């Protein structure tokens, strides 16, 4: 029934007849799915390769099976995909005692159709499985053969290599066919015993690894044998993985080092490193060992989405958006964010870069996440510090400016803006030239230019426009400024308003120069209670004292002002100083060469609210001249007083002298009224006439006197002879004139210049006196007048043998209205006038007289023709002034 044309031929076993028709029918219907073992065939070929590769389940009777089994082809049997074994009852008993492979399914006859079907289906499944396993086996076989890992299979009993791949063959430098079947110990002839020992251990499962050297030509390879024991059928085999570690050792070491380096690098950086996929799921997570959040280990993150790891929603969202963008644009990005952790804020900066697979497609991102909290805090602190210092600068109570490297102002503080009244923008746009006073611009710009070129500090006073529109003086100090990198960044400076100070300075300067140029000596004295040193002396002080300003400073005040020590004045000054009182007084100084000078001194304590030291201010002036003038004035005053007294006396005398004859006349007139006798009346009238002429004479004399004292001197040539003659003519009417013998002797050789009128008066008076006071009792009353002129002078001698003047009267003869005797009928003015005239003409008069013997006057008058007019003029003026 089972046909076989090549492989489809059916073989029926001896039990064929035992197979029920339904089974037969089933088998025929399913002949594509089942193979039937032909006993004969088996006997002929055993299990050929052909059979073994049969992919259908085998149906065989027990005899066929036994045949196979007894031939010891159990291993082959095992290789069959599935065996369906038909058994009768007897055979079933025998089979039960056999150790049958798992792919054998027992079918007890009679076989029911349903059972057969089930079994067949099961077998088909097994076959299918087997088929697949066969493919696998080939796959794995190919893996084994082609593996780059050298592999051999060893029979530990025979020490024969029973299988090997190409890589193994390469190690031993043999062909695979050569290697298979060769003995392992023969490959390692030097390690025979060692090898056997190792294999023993392996069989005893004491070891799974050993190392052997393999000598190949001149090279020794170091081989590592990793061992697995495998069981094929009943046979125990050893499966080796061989590693040629001759090179690998080094590679290992290198790898190890690189690994270590990477590890330590990862550990050493503070950054978190993690990878995320497109959806934000954590793939990997590395964390530096010293990271703050140690609790957040990789377990917490890996496999979770970024939304589920406790990030704030906005941070997670930001991450996802950035990831999307990074992947799309294939460009790294950085995001900063804050996390609240452990009660404080932690700042992170994450660098997100695309993560690509082997094909270069971005599948996700790598994130290098850095904790920048410290940096942020530093930044924050810096910003606060910066703000603080900016505020400090801005609110600083003096004016601050700053210029950049191109000399342009780029900062002004609040104080500055308050000064100028501008807002910052206007201020920055206003050029220096507009801010400064026109007269200061040049100096300022050149100073700034120089400061910039030398990078040096500068200081300068100039005027700056104030918001009021007036210019105010400021002191402007600038210094170069360097940025944090030490690079020149321009200038920074301050301005102080010094207008008030400057005004005060100017006032002070003015005061100082006023004091300096004062026409009085001004000194400032320190009140040290002992030496009273001079601490300031103006120029005039040295003019007065002759002590230079330098020499005055520090010297004792009393000695500087030149007050003689131990005088009352010096004691008074010292006492004033000691009692802090003021002093005013005159000091008489002698400066060495007996030259006396007078100084006026005022000293007053200085009320001082600034210094704790006390001072005096002294005003010193030279009053020597004033004093001299004062003396002169005093003298003149005295003179004037004298003159006044004289005038008084003159008025008194004159009034009396004038009144006296008038009263006499009145008396006579009274007598006349009652006198009847004509002789008596005539007598009275005569007397009246006489008295009147006397009165007239007095008046004339007064006029002469007045003329002499008031009128200017007129110089003319004097003809003495003519004067004397005229004077005598004038007096010829006088009683007893002709009784006198006149002896005139004039030697008028040179021209003589003097005042004509005055000399005329002089001679008139003399001649009148000579006649009036002559002694006519004498036999020969005479008068002798001698005149001798020279270029220098004229000497006039007038003598008589008259009554003379008593000795006691001589000093008084020139006094006004002095009459020495009751005999005289003169006015008492004559000689007074004579003396005045002679004095006026710079002459001299001498008198010599003896009572009853006579009188001689000697008069000396200078000849003005010989005088220097100038000299004379001076004399004249002097004389006038007196």
């Amino acid at each position, binding site marked *: 029934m089972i046909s076989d044309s090549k492989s489809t031929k059916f073989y029926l076993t001896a039990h064929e007849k035992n197979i029920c028709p339904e089974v037969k029918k089933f088998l025929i219907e399913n002949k594509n799915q089942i193979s039937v073992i032909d006993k004969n065939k088996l006997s002929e070929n055993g299990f050929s390769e052909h059979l073994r590769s049969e992919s259908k389940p085998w149906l065989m009777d027990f005899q066929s099976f036994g045949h196979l089994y007894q031939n010891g082809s159990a291993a082959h049997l095992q290789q069959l995909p599935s065996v369906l074994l038909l058994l009768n009852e007897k055979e079933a008993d025998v089979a039960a005692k056999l150790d049958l492979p798992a792919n054998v399914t027992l079918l007890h006859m009679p076989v029911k159709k349903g059972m057969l079907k089930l079994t067949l289906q099961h077998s088909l499944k097994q076959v299918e499985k087997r088929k697949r396993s066969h493919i696998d086996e080939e796959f794995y076989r190919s893996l084994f053969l082609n593996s780059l890992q050298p592999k051999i299979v060893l029979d530990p009993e025979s020490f024969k290599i029973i299988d090997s791949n190409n890589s193994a063959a390469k190690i031993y430098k043999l062909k695979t066919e050569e290697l298979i079947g060769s003995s392992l110990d023969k490959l390692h002839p030097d390690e025979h015993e060692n090898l056997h020992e190792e294999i023993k251990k392996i069989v005893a499962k004491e070891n799974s690894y050993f190392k052997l050297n393999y000598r190949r030509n001149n090279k020794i390879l170091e081989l590592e044998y990793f061992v697995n024991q495998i069981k094929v059928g009943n046979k125990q085999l050893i499966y080796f993985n061989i590693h040629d570690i001759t090179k690998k050792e080094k590679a290992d070491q290198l790898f190890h080092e690189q690994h270590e380096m990477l590890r330590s690098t990862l550990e050493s950086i503070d950054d978190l490193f993690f990878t995320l996929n497109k959806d934000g799921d954590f793939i990997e997570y590395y964390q530096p060992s010293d990271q703050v959040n140690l609790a957040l280990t990789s377990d917490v993150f890996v496999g979770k989405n970024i939304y589920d790891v406790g990030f704030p929603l906005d941070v997670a969202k930001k991450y996802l958006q950035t990831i999307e963008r990074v992947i799309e644009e294939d460009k790294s990005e950085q995001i900063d964010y804050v996390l609240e952790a452990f009660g404080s804020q932690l700042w992170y900066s994450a660098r997100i870069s695309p993560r690509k697979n082997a094909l270069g497609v971005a599948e996700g991102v790598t994130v290098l996440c850095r904790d920048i909290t410290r940096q942020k805090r530093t930044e924050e602190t810096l910003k606060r510090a910066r703000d603080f210092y900016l505020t400090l600068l801005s609110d600083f109570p003096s004016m601050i400016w700053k210029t950049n490297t191109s000399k342009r102002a780029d900062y002004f503080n609040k104080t500055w803006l308050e000064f100028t009244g501008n807002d910052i923008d206007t201020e920055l746009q206003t050029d220096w030239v507009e801010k400064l006073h026109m007269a200061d611009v040049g100096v300022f710009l050149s100073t700034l230019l120089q400061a910039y070129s030398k990078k040096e500090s500068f200081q300068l006073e100039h005027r700056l426009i104030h918001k009021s529109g007036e210019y105010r003086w400021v002191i402007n100090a600038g210094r170069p400024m360097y940025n944090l990198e030490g690079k020149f960044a321009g200038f920074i400076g301050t301005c102080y308003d010094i207008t008030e100070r400057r005004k005060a300075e100017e006032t002070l300067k003015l005061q100082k120069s006023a004091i300096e140029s004062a026409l009085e000596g001004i000194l400032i004295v320190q009140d040290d209670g002992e030496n009273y040193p001079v601490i300031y002396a103006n120029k005039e002080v040295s003019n007065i004292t002759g002590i230079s300003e330098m020499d005055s400073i520090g010297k004792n005040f009393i000695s500087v002002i030149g007050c003689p020590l131990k005088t009352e004045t010096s004691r008074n000054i010292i006492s004033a100083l000691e009692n802090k009182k003021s002093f005013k007084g005159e000091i008489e100084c002698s400066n060495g060469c007996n030259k006396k000078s007078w100084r006026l001194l005022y000293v007053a304590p200085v009320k001082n609210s600034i210094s704790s030291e006390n001072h005096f201010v002294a005003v010193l002036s030279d009053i020597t001249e004033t004093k001299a003038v004062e003396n002169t004035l005093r003298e003149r005053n005295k003179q004037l007083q004298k003159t006044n007294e004289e005038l008084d006396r003159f008025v008194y005398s004159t009034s*009396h002298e004038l009144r006296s004859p008038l*009263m006499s006349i*009145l008396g*006579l007139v*009274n007598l006349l009224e009652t006198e009847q006798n004509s002789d008596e009346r005539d007598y009275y009238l005569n007397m009246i006439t006489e008295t009147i002429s006397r009165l007239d004479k007095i008046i004339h004399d007064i006029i002469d006197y007045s003329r002499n004292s008031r009128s200017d001197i007129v110089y003319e040539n004097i003809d003495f002879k003519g004067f004397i003659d005229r004077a005598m003519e004038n007096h010829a009417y006088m009683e007893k004139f002709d009784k006198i013998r006149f002896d005139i002797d004039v030697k008028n050789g040179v021209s003589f210049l003097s005042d004509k009128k005055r000399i005329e008066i002089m001679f008139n008076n003399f001649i009148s006196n000579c006649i009036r006071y002559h002694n006519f009792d004498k036999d020969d009353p005479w008068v002798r007048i001698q005149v001798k002129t020279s270029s220098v002078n004229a000497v006039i001698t007038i003598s008589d043998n008259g009554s003379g003047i008593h000795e006691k009267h001589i000093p008084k003869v020139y006094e006004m209205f002095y009459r020495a005797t009751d005999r005289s009928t003169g006015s008492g003015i004559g000689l007074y006038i004579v003396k005045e005239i002679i004095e006026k003409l710079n002459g001299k008069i001498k008198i010599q007289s003896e009572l009853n013997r006579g009188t001689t006057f000697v008069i000396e008058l200078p000849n003005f023709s010989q005088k220097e007019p100038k000299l004379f003029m001076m004399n004249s003026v002097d004389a006038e002034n007196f």
Partner: protein
Amino acid sequence: MILENILLIDDSDIDNLVNRKVVENAGLSKTITIEKSAESAIRYLHDIAQNDTGQIPDLIFLDIRMPEIDGFGFLELFEELPEIVHKKTKIVMLSSSVDAEDHKKAMANRFVVHYLNKPLKKESVQKLTQL
């Protein structure tokens, strides 16, 4: 009342003449003596005080302004005279001076009883008799 003796002291002859005439006309005194200087007047008074006390004048008319010794000088010298002269003689100043000082100074003297200005008048002399 008519006085026994009157002394006129004046350096001016005219004034002496005028004064004598007025005194005579007034009939003031029986005798009139004239001295032309203070010095001679003192000498005269001294003489009569010694020799003829009856001649001691009852009244002296004394001029102030005179050469050498003036009226005031006379008054000083008058002090030196004997007591008897002082008791009897009264002095009337007779001067042309209208100076108040002279008047005051003269009136301060204990012997001066009156001060008259020249020229001497009859009425003035008659008034004197009532003293």
